Structures are given as structure tokens and as C-alpha cells.
């Protein structure tokens, strides 16, 4: 189901691994934008609907959803290899592992410089204030979480104008560190900037940015991959590696990516909401203007925000706890540090703001309203026939989505297992045809599994 007008090149970081996927529907029912169908026994993702939130990754029982990442070997093309780490990378480790241990491990993995992503937070906050002074739309919605930006583009297009279009901390920090390194005499083409990402949406945001020309980040390394490499290194830890790292953090920066990390610094009536389901429910009401106006909304796709990112290996609640403790230690040095980074930033030209963000409404039945009306009438007639159980037996997540797929010519009413029974009893469909339809959805050998063989394999393990 592709809307013709929409950008086919839209990049997604989530892919289905067909070798592992067995078409079980967990991801299909978990997807908040109905972007998944099962065909030929495998889940398929519809690019125009996917917002890279990663709910499918969490739901999959066999780890068949892959999160794309750049090959680690790629970093060795650059003499200066910078890893940009968000505070949640440190936060997810048990407290007995010191920050300096983690830095040493990153050096051992191959990075020459370690910089903290949240160094630019004061600059970001100044930009928030400036943007809110210059733009009178309310509520302003944070663009920090890229899955939320994409969700608003596809599902709440009328709220696109409410997005607070400030360049996210990763981009501002990347430019800042790039300039700092260049000032120390290193040439730009010798520097590789790599981002340790806690989620798929941030990868999509870097590979296919919304509202900006190009991300200054060279590549992304998934945090779960780094987590394992760091722990492995620490098992047989060697001596201090003397890696370059900056410690320009403030408690603001450490807490920024956690829930309420933004709202506590924005004046006016604000609200922080995390979790895809909660955000959806709230945006629905905001779009209807059911609530009085807020000044600022901090919306994050993951439970406990970035601490609950799909690529975070540690427990999200413990990650929050560790970061809160770390932030307390940084409180004392706050003011001097803020002044120092602010001065540094003032000497560097950084794009503070994003360009326009376009709506990409999903689920339009047709560009032409007259044709769309005809399709809508047909859709409603179909809904009347379908059982309304949302069982997923047709390969679509619910009856309404199936009826939309049918009017768009992407599905048949005989895919519904209940309709099949009706049609067979009325001689409109033969049992063989029905079996063929089910095989097209669920694959040919669905019930032909060799149960004994599986048991033998288990014994061998």
C-alpha cells in the first residue's frame, strides 16, 4: 500500500530478517501506525507508514527485526575516530563499572576521542527559547525524539506546524567537536564522527534527516553492540589507555534524554509524556483541541525515554537511577562549566534551527477527494461484512486496515478467514482456493513442521 505522492526513498533503520521471521503477527499488532503486513509467511514493513519507533523490535519473539548499523571496521578509514556517546550509554552499566573503565574500553575498541553528545544542551536550550519567542504556535512540540517527529508527520499532520524546529543536540555537538578538532590542526577529512545510538529512530534521523540538509555525523554504531564489546573488554581489563575525552557535561545534559529532561528547563505550562501509546492518546486529544493550550510538550516514543531505547541493554529504571546519581555529582561544577561551553559555542557557527518539516499523511484513500469518497463508501460496506475481531488471520493487523487494503487493491476480502467460510458455503470459493489464499499469506509449510525434528535439535544443544 503505497501513496504515490510520497517519497519512496524514505530511509528506515528497521528491517525484517526473512531467515528468522516466521510470520507470527506479534510485530504487526504492536505497530502503532499499522505499517506491517504478513505476506508469504513473513512480516513486511510499509515504508511510508513506518516511523522507526521500534515497537516491532520489542514485540518480536525471535529477534527477526534487524536494526541497521554501520560496520565498525568503517571507523578505521579515519585517523581520528570520534565516538559521540549519549549519557544513557554510561547509565546502563552496573554502578561498579566506572565511567573511566567505559572510556578505556571504547579506546580499546578503536576510538581515539570520546565526546559526550549532551555537551551542547545549553546551546540547544537557548535555541528553544529563541524559537519559542519568534514562533507563536502553541503547544510547541519537542523534536528531540525523531520517532515522534515522524509520527506527527504521518499520523497528526495538522500538528507539523507546532514542532519546535531546533537542531537536536547530536547535530550541534557533532559540529562543535568537528570545529574544535579542526582548530587543533586536524584536517576535516581525517575526522570520522560516530554516534552511539540508543534506538532505531536516531539512525533513521541521521541517514534520512527531516528538516535539515545533511547530518554532520559520519556513521552510527548501535549501543547494544558497544555494550557487549565494552563488557567483554572489561572482563580482562588492561591498564589505563590514556584516551582523549572531554567532560564538559552538566547535570542538565546528563538528565536531558530522560523523561522530564527537557520540560524542567522550559517556562510556561509544560508536560512530559513517554511511551508510544501514551503519546498517541495525548496527540489525538491535542489535535481536537480538547485540552487548554500548553506551551511546550516533551514527547518521547520509549518508556522512560532514551533509557528505554530499544538498543539499551541495561534495565531502564536502573539506568535512570544511575544517571540521576551521576547528575548530582555534577551539580557543583555547573555554573563555571555552562559559561565555558557557552563561550566555546559562541565562536563556532552552528545551524541552530531546522528547515520546514513537511506533513506526510498516511492512509489517504486517494489524492482526489471524489475518488476517495467512493473508496470510503466501499470501505464502510466492507467493514460491515468483516467480523470486527481484529484477529490478524488475513495478514493485516485489524479489520479496518484490511478493508483499506482491499479498496486500495492490495488485498482480497477472501483473505478474511471468516469470509472464506461464508464464501465456501455459498460456492463462491473452493476449499482449494481458500487453502491457496492462506498459503499466500502464511507460507506453504505453515502446518507442515516436523515437530520431532525440533525436539531432537533441542536435545543436541
Amino acid at each position, binding site marked *: 500500500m503505497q501513496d504515490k505522492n510520497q517519497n519512496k526513498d524514505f530511509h528506515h533503520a528497521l528491517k525484517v530478517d526473512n531467515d528468522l521471521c516466521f510470520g507470527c503477527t506479534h510485530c504487526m499488532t504492536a505497530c502503532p501506525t499499522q505499517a506491517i503486513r504478513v505476506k508469504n509467511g513473513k512480516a513486511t514493513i510499509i515504508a511510508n507508514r513506518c516511523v522507526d519507533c521500534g515497537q516491532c523490535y520489542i514485540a518480536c519473539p525471535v529477534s527477526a527485526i534487524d536494526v541497521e548499523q554501520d560496520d565498525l571496521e568503517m571507523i578505521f578509514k579515519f585517523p581520528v575516530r570520534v565516538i559521540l556517546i549519549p549519557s544513557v550509554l554510561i547509565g546502563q552499566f552496573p554502578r561498579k563499572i566506572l565511567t573511566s573503565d567505559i572510556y578505556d574500553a571504547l579506546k580499546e575498541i578503536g576510538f581515539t576521542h570520546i565526546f559526550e553528545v549532551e555537551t551542547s544542551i545549553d546551546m540547544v536550550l537557548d535555541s528553544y527559547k529563541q524559537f519559542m519567542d519568534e514562533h507563536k504556535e502553541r503547544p510547541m512540540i519537542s523534536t528531540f525524539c525523531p520517532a515522534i517527529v515522524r509520527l506527527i508527520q504521518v499520523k497528526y499532520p495538522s500538528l507539523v506546524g507546532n514542532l519546535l524546529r531546533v537542531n537536536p543536540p547530536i547535530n550541534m555537538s557533532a559540529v562543535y567537536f568537528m570545529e574544535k578538532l579542526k582548530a587543533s590542526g586536524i584536517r576535516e577529512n581525517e575526522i570520522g564522527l560516530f554516534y552511539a545510538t540508543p534506538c532505531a529512530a536516531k539512525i533513521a534521523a541521521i541517514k534520512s534527516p527531516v528538516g535539515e540538509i545533511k547530518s554532520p555525523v559520519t556513521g552510527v554504531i548501535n549501543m547494544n553492540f558497544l555494550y557487549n564489546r565494552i563488557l567483554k573488554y572489561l572482563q580482562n581489563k588492561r591498564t589505563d589507555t590514556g584516551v582523549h575525552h572531554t567532560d564538559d557535561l552538566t547535570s542538565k545534559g546528563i538528565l536531558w534524554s530522560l523523561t522530564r529532561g527537557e520540560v524542567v528547563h522550559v517556562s510556561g505550562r509544560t508536560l512530559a509524556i513517554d511511551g508510544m501509546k501514551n503519546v498517541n492518546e495525548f496527540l489525538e486529544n491535542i489535535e*481536537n483541541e480538547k485540552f487548554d493550550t500548553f506551551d511546550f510538550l516533551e514527547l518521547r516514543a520509549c518508556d522512560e525515554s532514551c533509557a528505554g531505547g530499544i538498543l539499551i541493554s541495561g534495565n531502564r529504571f536502573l539506568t535512570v537511577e544511575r544517571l540521576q546519581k551521576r547528575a548530582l555529582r555534577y551539580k557543583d561544577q555547573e555554573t563555571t562549566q555552562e559559561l565555558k561551553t557557552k563561550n566555546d559555542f559562541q565562536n563556532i557557527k552552528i545551524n541552530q534551527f531546522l528547515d520546514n518539516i513537511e506533513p506526510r499523511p498516511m492512509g489517504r484513500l486517494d489524492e482526489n477527494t471524489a475518488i476517495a469518497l467512493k473508496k470510503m463508501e466501499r470501505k464502510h460496506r466492507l467493514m460491515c461484512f468483516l467480523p470486527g475481531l481484529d484477529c490478524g488471520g488475513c495478514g493485516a493487523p485489524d479489520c479496518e486496515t484490511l478493508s483499506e487494503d482491499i479498496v486500495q487493491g492490495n488485498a482480497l476480502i477472501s483473505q478474511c478467514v471468516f469470509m472464506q467460510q461464508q464464501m465456501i458455503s455459498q460456492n463462491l470459493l473452493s476449499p482449494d482456493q481458500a487453502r491457496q489464499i492462506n498459503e499466500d499469506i502464511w507460507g506453504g509449510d505453515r502446518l507442515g513442521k516436523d515437530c520431532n525434528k525440533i525436539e531432537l535439535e533441542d536435545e543436541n544443544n
Partner: protein
Amino acid sequence: MQFRHKIAGGDFAKAGNVASSVKKVLQQLNIDHVISKRTVIALYEGEVNVVAHAYSGIIEIEIDEEKIKIIITDKGPGIADIDQAMVEGFSTATPQVREMGFGAGMGLSNMKKNSDFMKISSIVEEGTVVELINYLKPDARQESK
């Protein structure tokens, strides 16, 4: 294309459900989002009015290539003085209703602001009928004025 929804008086938790479902329909029909937003806001206010003041109501929505027409028919106390009811801030809502954040007296004027055409007829002690039209093409809107 026609839709009919029943609404129960006094059920504030469900106020807005009709507006939400209509919003989704308008999005699928590729209706301009400014027109869609105006319609949804006017409809939401109408829904709240039925919930806050009437015993029960029916909302009929008719969409064709030219316009979106909404007829909200309720059984309820009716409106004695429609001109007065249109004044911003005038409200007959009970203190309990106001406590819940409704009844600020902006409903009817908001509905008027967000529609191209609005007609109210009411019989006291029987009920009220509100008819709203939003045109899909800008020239049609001009002609109606």
C-alpha cells in the same frame, strides 16, 4: 457518504469520540487540513454541548465533493434566547459541569468561528438542532457568505 452517531447526555469521558472518528475520515479523504481542523473543532464543541446540556443526541455527518454538512439534533432543555447564547462567555452550564472544565460559554461562538455556515433552531423543553456546513472549495465558501 453519511455517518450517524448517537451520543448520551452527561457522558463527558466520551465527548470527542465522534470528532476523533470524523477527523480520521477527513484525513483519509485528503481534505485540506485547515478545513479538516476547523470541522473537527466545531464538531467537538457541538458534541460537548449535547453532553453538557441535553439528555441525548444524534450527530449526522454528510460528506460530498463540495462540502461537509453536520446536523446535531438533541433532546433537551432547548435554548430560550439564541442570540444571547451566541455571546462569548454566556453560559447556562451548571457549576458541576464547569468544575469539569466545560461550560465556559465559548461553545457556540467557537462553532460559528470554525464553520462556513451555521444555523440553530431550538424549542424550549424539547431540544435543539444545529446545522453546520464547511465547504471544501474556497470559492464555494465565498458564495455562501
